[in-house]
């Protein structure tokens, strides 16, 4: 029998994507696309600009200047493949075992290889497109600084493709083995262990704290040694830097491609051996019988003063979150993000050795506020943004019941906001303690972070309602949709506006301390604090109202 082509097997996916684009265009999405392109391009230029400045500076530094760009690229690529392995593990779980098209594909006479390749491609695309986009300005900065020329573009693609393919195969294989070997309950613990191990391989703190080395020679020695000679990121770094320094190393490129080919082959064989059994196990599930009333006694008890509709709604959302693998597994990505962030703050050489100016510390604590805001936005995109979309198919029940939609919105908002608030205040508090900021800055950033979290959460919910993905089968894919990107960009704009307003307010204080003058709280300072507060309040109230109006118009 003639087998259908891969393109044909994937037809429902790409046709759906095309149809969505068409619908978006018909709804007047062209304007949105232009905004997205412009803001995306600005973001690219910002990443490009920062790296360009750093690389240009390093080129002028003797000895270290030649080594550090290699190391930076190596670390960036290593971070990429680590994140990619994790995100492929999570994506593969849904594309290989939970997707709705699997019943059809598995029951149809499609051979195992085609099924594997189609699903591998789908997994790769879903988990890697953001990383691939992020790599563009980074590689462009290297290409421009080292004058790689136009041919560097196809060469870089040639290097990046196997680098994306390898984590996809590994992630898929890990999921395949996990589903086969461990019951669903244990998968959770195992994924956490993998995340921690991956993070330990990166060891970013080693390089970020040069004073930890006995002398410069030690530091240079570490820079010269590859992070790990067996890691594909190291081969990719060698291949790229070799090309840019006109010292092409074909072995690295050959290693990348042959390893990728070998891994795909091995992955396919593993799939043939383990998929049928794993697929069956995934259908059976291991955690279906639930008698305990853990959430009912804990959260239900805490919320017992609330009206029953709100309480049951919150309980339902919490239960669904912790029982849905595609949702809770994202907590691992979140943990990695937070740990990397705190590590980086800790590694800043602000209070080591000679005293650093107060001005510098305040500036860094300000950047910290913006960065923590960005981390929170990323987390809100993962956990709050999908909230409305996830009701999708059950909306018939909510709309036909006398549930006040404000209660629905209220529950969704606070279920997302309270954990976010705890995390935000902890993150800001801990990093500010590490930075040894003044009490004034501590209070300012804590209050600002509190207000920003309320706003970010409201915006996540509103953009999630404005760009719902009711048909999605994987919660992890909702934040990477068009609406998710628009939300991230809108949040970055809010963060920039609030941080700038606060800077205007705090600048008077910084100057007063710097000059040794007494602090005067004047109308200028109060005015800018008021602007920041008004921005946060508007970004909380307006989106929530818009979300309510949007939910009221949903039709099913």
């Amino acid at each position, binding site marked *: 029998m003639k087998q259908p082509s891969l393109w044909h097997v994937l037809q429902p996916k790409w046709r759906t994507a095309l149809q969505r684009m068409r619908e978006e265009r018909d709804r007047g999405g062209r304007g949105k696309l232009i905004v997205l392109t412009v803001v995306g391009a600005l973001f690219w230029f910002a990443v490009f600009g920062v790296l360009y400045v750093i690389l240009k500076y390093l080129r002028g530094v003797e000895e270290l200047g030649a080594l550090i760009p290699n190391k930076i690229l190596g670390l960036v690529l290593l971070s990429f493949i680590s994140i990619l392995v994790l995100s492929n593990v999570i994506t593969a779980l849904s594309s290989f075992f939970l997707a709705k098209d699997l019943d059809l594909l598995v029951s149809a006479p499609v051979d195992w290889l085609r099924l594997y390749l189609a699903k591998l491609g789908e997994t790769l695309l879903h988990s890697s497109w953001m990383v691939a986009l992020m790599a563009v300005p980074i590689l462009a900065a290297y290409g421009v600084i080292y004058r790689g020329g136009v041919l560097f573009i196809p060469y870089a693609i040639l290097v990046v493709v196997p680098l994306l393919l390898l984590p996809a195969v590994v992630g898929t294989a890990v999921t395949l083995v996990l589903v086969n070997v461990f019951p669903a309950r244990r998968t959770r613990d195992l994924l956490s262990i993998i995340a921690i191990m991956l993070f330990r391989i990166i060891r970013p703190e080693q390089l970020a704290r040069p004073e930890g080395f006995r002398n410069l020679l030690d530091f240079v020695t570490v820079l010269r040694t590859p992070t790990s000679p067996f890691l594909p990121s190291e081969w990719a770094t060698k291949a790229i830097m070799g090309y840019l320094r006109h010292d092409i190393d074909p072995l690295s490129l050959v290693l990348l491609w042959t390893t990728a080919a070998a891994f795909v082959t091995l992955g396919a064989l593993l799939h043939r051996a383990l998929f049928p059994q794993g697929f069956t196990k995934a259908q059976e599930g291991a955690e279906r019988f639930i008698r305990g009333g853990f959430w009912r006694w804990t959260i239900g008890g805490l919320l017992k003063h609330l009206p029953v*509709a709100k309480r049951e709604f919150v309980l339902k959302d919490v239960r*669904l979150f912790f029982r849905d693998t595609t949702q809770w597994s994202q907590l691992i990505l979140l943990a990695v993000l937070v740990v990397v962030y705190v590590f980086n703050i800790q590694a800043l050489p602000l209070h080591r050795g000679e005293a650093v100016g107060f001005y510098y510390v305040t500036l860094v604590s300000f950047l910290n506020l913006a960065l923590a805001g960005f981390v929170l936005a990323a987390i809100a995109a993962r956990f709050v943004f999908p909230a409305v979309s996830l009701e999708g198919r059950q909306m018939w029940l909510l709309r036909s019941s*006398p549930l006040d939609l404000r209660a629905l919105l209220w529950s969704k908002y606070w279920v997302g906001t309270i954990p976010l608030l705890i995390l935000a205040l902890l993150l800001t508090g801990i990093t500010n303690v590490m930075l040894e900021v003044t009490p004034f800055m501590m209070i300012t950033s804590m209050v600002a972070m509190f207000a920003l979290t309320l706003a970010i959460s409201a915006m996540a919910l509103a953009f999630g309602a404005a760009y719902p993905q009711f048909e999605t089968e994987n919660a992890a894919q909702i934040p990477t949709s068009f609406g998710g990107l628009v939300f991230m960009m809108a949040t970055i704009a809010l963060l920039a506006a609030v941080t700038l307003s606060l800077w205007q307010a705090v600048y008077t204080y910084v100057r007063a301390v710097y000059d040794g003058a007494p602090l005067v709280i004047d109308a200028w300072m109060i005015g800018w604090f008021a602007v920041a507060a008004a921005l946060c309040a508007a970004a909380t109230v307006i989106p929530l109202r818009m979300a309510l109006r949007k939910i009221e118009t949903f*039709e099913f």
Partner: protein
Amino acid sequence: MIRLENLTKLYGSFVAVDDISLHVPRGVLYGCLGPNGAGKTTTLRMIAGILRPTQGRVLLGGDDVHVNPLSAKMRLGFIPDRPFVYDKLTGVEFLRFVAGLYGQEGDSVERRIAELLEVFELTSWQNELVEAYSHGMRQKLIISSALIHRPECIVVDEPMVGLDPKAARLLKDIFRQFVDKGGTVLMSTHTLEVAEAMCDQIAIIQHGKVVAAGTVADVRREHQAGTSSLEELFLKLTGGAHVKALVEVLGA
């Protein structure tokens, strides 16, 4: 109890429901019949407040579903044709959640849940996640959820799909008793035998319009159908009598 006034629904330029007016009195089991795509489900979803009509209004016990949604919906139990429920909740958690949506809790709800699970033979499945349920079991769970708050009227889309004969019989008995006690049921169905055996009144819908309404005897009389069966009457009114030879369709 249920009153539709000039109900119209447009999807772009497509008219899904075209100026339907109907009155379903208290204590009546009313059947909505019609071929696929006639507009039955759209009508029922507008009654349940899930879809907003382009024109016209829906009154449940005197309350407009879209003007006073909360008081109107308190009277309603809606059973959709496709049993989408939260896969990651257990049966008992789902029923408790639905009761909460209607502001009900406590021992009386727990007793009601136990009672409904017992009636629909789901007691042994009550602590299993819904994802493990068969299509028919999900349907039974949704029917239980529609009954949990003791509604005054039930709107049900294709109630018998996926049910085993025993459950189908049980449902018929439940609906009949519900109506005998003064409740109101509006159901859509393709199964004409079911409609003929169960419904006090029917409406036949085609292309979004009501083409016939009343008791089966009324409709027969009005369309001079003599003693013909409801199936023949249905095919006559909906123009579905031209069926290709089975052999040709099967390609034998």
